[in-house]
């Protein structure tokens, strides 16, 4: 599987570390209930098809990416840089099927 890193271009999946489900939003600590935290920490949808995940390009640019991947075909729709360098990233990663 190749992940289209917006900074490095298509790279082998072995250069990346999986960072988990990127659809979960961290609850606001001021207002979150125990159920909100339980959902954020433990509950995952495990969809068949399109999924959005975090991947860390540890053996490349070391940026964190948000990758949209089909869990059935492994086709990657795109990848974008997240975190403090998101604005500096050149462009959306290319689809490499």
């Amino acid at each position, binding site marked *: 599987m190749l992940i289209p890193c917006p900074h490095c271009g298509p790279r*082998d999946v072995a250069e990346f570390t999986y960072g988990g489900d990127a659809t979960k939003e961290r609850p606001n600590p001021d207002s979150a209930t125990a159920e909100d935290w339980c959902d954020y920490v433990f509950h995952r949808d495990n969809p068949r098809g399109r999924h959005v995940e975090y991947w860390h390009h540890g053996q490349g640019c070391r940026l964190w990416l948000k990758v949209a991947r089909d869990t059935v075909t492994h086709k990657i729709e795109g990848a974008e840089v997240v975190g403090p360098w998101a604005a500096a990233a050149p462009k959306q990663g290319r689809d490499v099927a």
Partner: protein
Amino acid sequence: MSEAISPAVSPLRGHSEARVPAGDAAVTLTERKLVSLVQVAAWPETAEQVEGILASLIGCAPPQGPAGSSGDAGGAILALSPGRWLVESGDPRLAARLGEQIPPALGAVADLSHARIAIRVSGPKAAWVLAKGLALDLHPQAFPPMKVAQSAVHEVGVVVRRLSADKLGGDSFDLYVYRGFALSFWDWLTEAAAETGYRVDPPGSA
């Protein structure tokens, strides 16, 4: 008991000495002498400013575009990722100079001079040999001269830079490899180059 090796002595000592094969040599391997190699990382707000400091200190233009590089072995800037550069220079005081000009408010300066070894791979089959372990598109259109990639060969981190062909009269790559992996990387490289035949030039001659 294992022998302690001083940082001044290459871990490739006894391995990277000059060697001329009896047959063909489509690749030349040379261990380069690293004087100063420094990683500089800026904050998103200070990246432009830090890049300007590097360029004026090294005396060359900033690297062109992402994953580009500028300069030569006398002083070079390699753009590894947004706001992160590898700077090489023949000036032994490079890390100190960078530290003076780049305080923590602007970025972080890490001296890697003794943490990496540098190998030059050149010749008509250089890309062919590297492609055996480097999962990168090394076609000159995808990876033109001066382009840089931080990647891995069999999980061993390696920074690759293609050099300007017209200056050296052929295809050449500079590799920067973790010092602790120098020997196993050299083993991999010489095994990968066995097919095409290779020559080893004296350490420090490239």
